[in-house]
């Protein structure tokens, strides 16, 4: 209950501080990207638009987590707003958890709104593509004996797109067409990925300044994205030496180090199925990825709670 109050308040703060304006930026980006893709590219336009959309949703979510997330705790300390909160009958870990949940709520809502917009754009693009429109208008004209209105068609398509986008969101991506397959899945995975990144943002901001925590969070993000390469580094050593038994002592250590680093750092590749979106394939539900994401985030949060609990507020 108290945790919830803090979460809701954190969300409110993001909304009142105009964080949602980034959505406008996203809208412009997607429309501009669609326009650029269809102007500059001579093939694979739809693929480029899809790539751009899902990647933009992901990047913006990461940026929100990093740049809004790292400021959260610090601002409360800096402005001393935390004084009146921690002195209330609430534990510090509850405060931290509330902040985390509030941030996740902010990010999730942002991601879902962006996804909704992107889905609607894709549906609409489908409706107004040459083939569909000529087919539809042909039928309409036949029925209405020359009375088919292109404007009416656009309006109806727009409304249809909006409702279909809502349907796709509410069905968690189970309802889709060829135009939007996999996109909602990618967004859900993005939210899951952000669970981990936001936990890092909270962890770092629980003991360092925003600039430093932004840097550290981005570092964690980059390491997370390069996790697979860290793992393959060890494999590379083995394959270069043609077999594990041929490794020198130092290399053996490097091999185990790369293994350990790969297992300890977050593996954000698990949440990256954006190539499937480009291929217009559905993203399969991966319960292990969900467990991994939530579990990893929980571990990071626990560390953050321990550190935060030991702090003096200046």
């Amino acid at each position, binding site marked *: *209950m*108290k945790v*919830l*109050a*803090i979460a809701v*308040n954190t969300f*409110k*703060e993001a909304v*009142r*501080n105009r964080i949602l304006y980034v959505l406008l930026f996203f809208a412009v980006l997607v429309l501009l990207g669609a326009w650029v893709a269809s102007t500059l590219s001579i093939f694979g336009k739809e693929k480029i638009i899809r790539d751009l959309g899902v990647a933009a949703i992901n990047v913006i979510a990461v940026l929100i987590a990093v740049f809004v997330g790292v400021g959260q705790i610090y601002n409360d300390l800096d*402005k*001393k*707003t*935390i*004084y*009146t*909160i*921690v*002195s*209330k*009958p*609430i*534990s510090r870990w509850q405060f931290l958890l509330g902040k985390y949940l509030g941030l996740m709520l902010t990010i999730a809502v942002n991601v879902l709104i962006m996804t909704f917009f992107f889905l609607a754009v894709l549906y609409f693009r489908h409706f107004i593509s040459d083939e569909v429109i000529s087919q539809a208008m042909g039928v309409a004209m036949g029925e209405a004996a020359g009375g088919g209105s292109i404007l009416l068609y656009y309006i109806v398509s727009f409304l249809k797109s909006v409702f279909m986008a809502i349907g796709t969101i509410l069905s968690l991506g189970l309802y889709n067409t060829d135009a939007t397959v996999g996109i909602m899945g990618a967004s859900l995975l993005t939210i899951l990925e952000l669970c981990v990144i936001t936990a890092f943002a909270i962890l770092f901001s629980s003991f360092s300044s925003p600039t430093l925590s932004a840097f550290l969070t981005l570092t964690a993000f980059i390491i997370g994205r390069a996790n697979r390469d860290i793992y393959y580094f060890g494999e590379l050593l083995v394959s270069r030496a043609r077999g594990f038994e041929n490794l020198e002592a130092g290399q053996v250590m490097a091999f185990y180090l790369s293994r350990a680093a790969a297992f300890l750092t977050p593996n954000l590749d698990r949440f990256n199925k954006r190539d499937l979106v480009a291929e217009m394939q559905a993203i399969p539900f991966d319960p292990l990825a969900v467990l991994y994401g939530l579990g990893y985030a929980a571990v990071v949060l626990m560390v953050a709670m321990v550190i935060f609990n*030991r*702090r*003096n*507020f*200046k």
Partner: protein
Amino acid sequence: MSAVIEIEGLTKVYVQDFLGLEHGRVKMRFRNRKRVALDHLDLKIEEGQIFGLLGPNGAGKTTTIKILMGLHYATSGNARIMGKALGDLDVKKQIGFLPENANFYDYLTGEEFLDFYGQLYGMDRASRRRRIPELLELVGLGHAGAIPLRGYSKGMQQRAGLAQALLNDPKLVILDEPQSGLDPFGRKEVRDLILKLKEEGKTVMFSSHILGDAEMICDRVAILHQGKLIAEGHLGELLSTRISDYEVAISDPSEALLKELRDSTTRLVERRTDFLAVFDSEDKAKAVIGRVVAGEGKLLGYTPRRETLEDYFIREIELKRSAERGNAPVLPAAKNETQEEAKEA
């Protein structure tokens, strides 16, 4: 009467590590700079009292309060509130706290702000609905409930802060510098509010470096200086009833009287044709008044001055300092200077 707050040997040492970060816990032996903020403080605050924690800036008042509120951890020593260790959530439920220069989430409206804190106190929706308008009225923000806090003036924000401290109908109210940054009118309101809280049977602990505020309302005070407790007790015990100075304000004194004044006063303040003469005995003052009444000038005022908390405070600190240095106190000059400033203001 039972003790609401018991503080025993509370010590806080800030350590600045080689990175320049200040923290209270990490002990590093390498090139750390230490600052003792609180040095073995012992205090006891009884129920139903208004307790003033006094001292100049940096005396350790805020540190004490922060430790009590669980914002800082003590280096050593311990403190108990209502008989329980610090950080006990049940105890926290019965405390209202207003920090110094408090900032709040300024994107919330007055009502949302109190509602948020109500939730933190674990109040249910119904009691929040009942209590919030009541409190807004109490602190005089009844008209501003729907305005975001960022639209509030400094005084209004301070009142909102008071409202959140009283939201849970606390038994113990801790206010850190509640009157700083307020205009005289606002300070009077805060003073009245504290007295009202006392009437309701609540214990109030507040800190201030403006001694006049404390003088009027405190039952007991503790005076801190550089982390150490200098004195603690009932105000009546601490302040002597003796009258220390006799001030005579004169306008247009005659040449002769002026010469007399220059010789006999402990201090003479001139402002154009007005003079403030300070005497150390009543006789001297009365003699001068007599001459003025006789026509050698115009009498503006006569004040026998009782020692104030402020005087006491300065005296104690000077005593302490001189004791450290092993010198005799040089009280009068310091005292009169303060006096003069006060008068001129």
